[in-house]
């Protein structure tokens, strides 16, 4: 039931976000309307980080307590997390195409996000290959914990790697002070995505609980 409330809230927030992104926020001078994809890209990556933080929490929780609820949390967070990471990469690529001329240039942020994507797709693949629930949860938890611990390391290594070859490309709002309408639109969309994630998480946990009950 809580999930349904979340669902409605998320839907409302998403509409508000769309309005903010296309109606309220100004058209960017240099990049044009393509820049509006930032309102998709940035909230998506923030939500992905939230998701993987929850995967870490669920993994830790399971290893410490052995209660299946924690493992369900990890699974239910990982799937939307991979989804949002995919959205981040795709939107980043689309955003960059007019600016760079190609779909991909190994930009530091995009590359780190891509590595993150690979890590958690691997996590889901691993889960798919182990049948016994306890072994699956433990194995996934270890991979999830290492994956989370690795996030800052990956971030820095990719950033320095890029700095060797090219100055960082401008693909984010950090390059200039943010005007209020932009900040507001970003914020609205971020809330919307977080609500959407919460809805997906709750729903997925429900399904997981039903799956476990059916199996046991």
């Amino acid at each position, binding site marked *: 039931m809580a999930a349904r409330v979340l669902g409605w809230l998320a839907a409302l927030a998403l509409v508000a976000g769309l309005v903010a992104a296309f109606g309220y926020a100004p058209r960017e001078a240099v990049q044009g309307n393509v820049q509006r994809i930032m309102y998709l890209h940035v909230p998506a990556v923030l939500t992905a980080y939230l998701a993987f933080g929850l995967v870490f929490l669920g993994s830790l929780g399971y290893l410490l307590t052995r209660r299946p609820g924690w493992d369900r949390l990890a699974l239910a967070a990982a799937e939307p997390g991979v989804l949002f990471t995919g959205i981040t990469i795709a939107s980043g690529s689309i955003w960059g195409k007019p600016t760079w001329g190609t779909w991909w240039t190994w930009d530091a942020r995009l590359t780190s996000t891509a590595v993150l994507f690979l890590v958690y797709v691997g996590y889901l693949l691993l889960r798919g290959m182990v049948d*016994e629930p*306890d072994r699956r949860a433990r194995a996934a938890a270890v991979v999830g914990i290492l994956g989370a611990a690795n996030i800052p390391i990956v971030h820095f290594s990719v950033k320095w790697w890029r700095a060797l070859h090219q100055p960082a490309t401008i693909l984010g709002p950090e390059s200039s002070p943010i005007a209020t309408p932009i900040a507001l639109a970003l914020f609205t969309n971020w809330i919307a995505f977080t609500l959407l994630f919460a809805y997906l998480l709750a729903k997925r946990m429900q399904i997981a609980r039903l799956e476990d009950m059916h199996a046991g």
Partner: protein
Amino acid sequence: MRERAASPAFDLMVQAEHLRKTYGPTPVLDGVSLELGAGQGLTLLGPNGTGKTTLLRILATLLRPTSGSLRIAGADALKEPEAVRGAIDMVGHGSWVYEDLSAMENLRFWSIMGGHDAAQTRLHTALEEVELDTVADQRARTFSAGMKRRLALARVLLGRARLLLLDEPFTGLDRAGRKWLGEFLMSFKARGGALIVATHSFDAGVGVADRVAILAGGRIVLDRPAAELGPDDLRRLYDELAMGPETAS
């Protein structure tokens, strides 16, 4: 139709209650409860594939049950498996023998892993007891199944296990071997250890048993002191309960 004896209230090594293990929708174990005291031997009978190995592995803390409780030597084996593992040893289908190592080297490895004294003399004495001292430095690759099992038992001797779980330990042994194993198990019990032998052939394992239990359909369908059952009774009950009513004479 389930018959269960009350066990005397002394030092309980194993207290299992309502153990269930399901793989997907099929339950392999469907509410197994049993108790075993120190110095007691339990023979677990059942046709192949009925979950004896699964039950043994759960009792060994190698596998977690889907539900139920398990206490070993008084400690909760599900919450703190590490605390009880020092007291458990197992001789299963695999005998934990590294084939490229010699008998002595195998014993040395497992002794140190178990935190026991691994002095050469001590290891050699254990090999003598299981009559493998003549091949002490030979690679285990050359050993027969029976010899590997004896090596596993030497390992048990060197340890401090108080609960010994054996899965089909008599298979592949000739008459002398079976007699020898029976004596080994009796002396293990005499030293205060508890043991559970899982087997599908009951001429062998029953000799060491103080109690006999039959596992069928994921449940214990019989649990009686061995003294109460003559060999014919046992065979009859086994056919009835384990093999199904159609085969009862």
